[in-house]
């Protein structure tokens, strides 16, 4: 998207011009997906509840229904957060190769976006777990992986605050960004492959119906657009700040 090996990402390049439009498009797509999820896509076998029922001491009429619907948001958000992490790692590598501050800025912002989406993933995931399994938390592979991902992203951002010297900060955080990107898939594999004797291994849905797939696809596209637009907007803000700082310094001299 923003990668041009010959040219550094800078504000005012074409992505900035399309960013607002993309944001609107993303919002529209997400809304369409949202409506689809509730109005068009039929619940998967037996997920509908006929009338109100007493579950867990409270009157619930749509428990499973909601857990189904949450999934439509949970998955795209989770994918986008990992995408953002991948982008951050990509920029981290570029930084280490070129030692260009711009890539450090890009990596940092991608990480921030990643954190935003990871938090959303965690919230939707919690809700899903609560509705589906009746507990707020379980050490299920995906949840665990995202918890670790969230912790690493937070650690990355905290680390940036703990180092004053700009170049050192950029180098160290780039290294951590790459380590995070390598670590997270391993984490998923390890938690997935080792059978747990204490918790039941959750077998997820066998497959998605075409409507479901379409709906998830639409929301996914929407979320990607939103993520991209947010990234560009934040990038613009940070870059302008940096340029103001540079001008200030020049004036001081």
């Amino acid at each position, binding site marked *: 998207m923003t990668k041009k090996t010959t040219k550094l990402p800078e504000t005012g390049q074409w992505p900035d011009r399309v960013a607002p439009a993309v944001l609107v498009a993303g919002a529209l797509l997400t809304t369409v997906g949202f409506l689809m999820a509730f109005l068009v896509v039929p619940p998967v076998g037996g997920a509908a509840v006929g009338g109100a029922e007493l579950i867990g001491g409270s009157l619930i009429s749509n428990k499973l229904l909601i857990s189904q619907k949450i999934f439509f948001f949970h998955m795209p958000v989770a994918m986008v957060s990992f995408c953002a992490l991948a982008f951050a790692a990509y920029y981290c590598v570029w930084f280490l190769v070129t030692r260009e501050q711009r890539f450090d800025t890009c990596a940092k912002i991608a990480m921030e976006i990643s954190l935003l989406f990871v938090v959303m993933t965690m919230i939707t995931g919690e809700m899903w777990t609560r509705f589906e399994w009746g507990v707020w938390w379980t050490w299920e592979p995906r949840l665990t992986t995202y918890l670790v991902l969230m912790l690493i992203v937070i650690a990355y951002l905290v680390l940036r605050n703990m180092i004053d010297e700009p170049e050192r900060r950029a180098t160290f955080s780039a290294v951590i960004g*790459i*380590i995070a990107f390598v*670590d997270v898939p*391993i*984490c998923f594999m390890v938690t997935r*492959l080792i059978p747990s004797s204490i918790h039941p291994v959750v077998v997820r849905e066998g497959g998605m119906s075409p409507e479901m797939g379409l709906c998830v696809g639409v929301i996914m596209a929407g979320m990607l657009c939103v993520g991209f637009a947010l990234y560009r907007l934040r990038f613009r803000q940070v870059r302008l700040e940096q340029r103001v700082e540079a001008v200030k310094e020049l004036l001081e001299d």
Partner: protein
Amino acid sequence: MTRSQKAPAARPAAQAPAPAARPQRPSGFAQYKTLLGKDLRQEFRTKEMLVSMGIYAVLVIVVYGVALSFARPGGEFLEVSGGLLWALVVFTSLLGLGRSFAAEKENGCIEGLLLAPLDRGVVFLAKATSNLVFLLVVEVIAVPLFWFFFSSFAHPGASAPLMVAPLVVGSVGIAGVGTLLSTITANTRGKDVMLALLFVPVIFPLLYACVSATTAALVGGDALADVFGMSLALAAGYDVIMILASWVLYDFVVS
């Protein structure tokens, strides 16, 4: 104030030896041995790190003793003990790793190393090895001590000695990744907190696999057959990938 106006004539004992004896760059392995020997000699002289890690391990066991004092002994303890053991290892290694690089920073020694014609990967390997040695020494003391205090709770199965394998594999990974992370955090504010913050999530997969393998070894029976090999293989896989990554990235961290 002396003002020796650029007088190379005044030349006491120090004579520049013949430049013919230009140093030959030694092999990476020789340098590795030199670095490792330095770390070991320094540590076994002061015993600073070993003693503090050992005491810390004992203290964690004491805390466990309090935490478990109202628990009912029985077979369930075996399922928990693997995890407890690894919590002990993780916290103790955090303490050691935090210190391992402090010595290099103290007098700017790390710069002295980097001034030498020396591959940065060698520095990483030597440091990781010395961390591994210290960690294993502490484990050799702490693990039997753990069972000494908690043998009244449950007796591990016959396959218990197999847990040496996950302990070694886990320690290798901890030392490798920990060396990279502690080098990074030695240069930050709030070193120890920062190290823990980075170390625990990054080490998570390894920890998970090692706890699984250790528990399997302790419980024995079906669990052993089902889980042990797979967990150990995953832990070893983690070691290979992460140590390789750390080794490659180390160059950027030190310069």
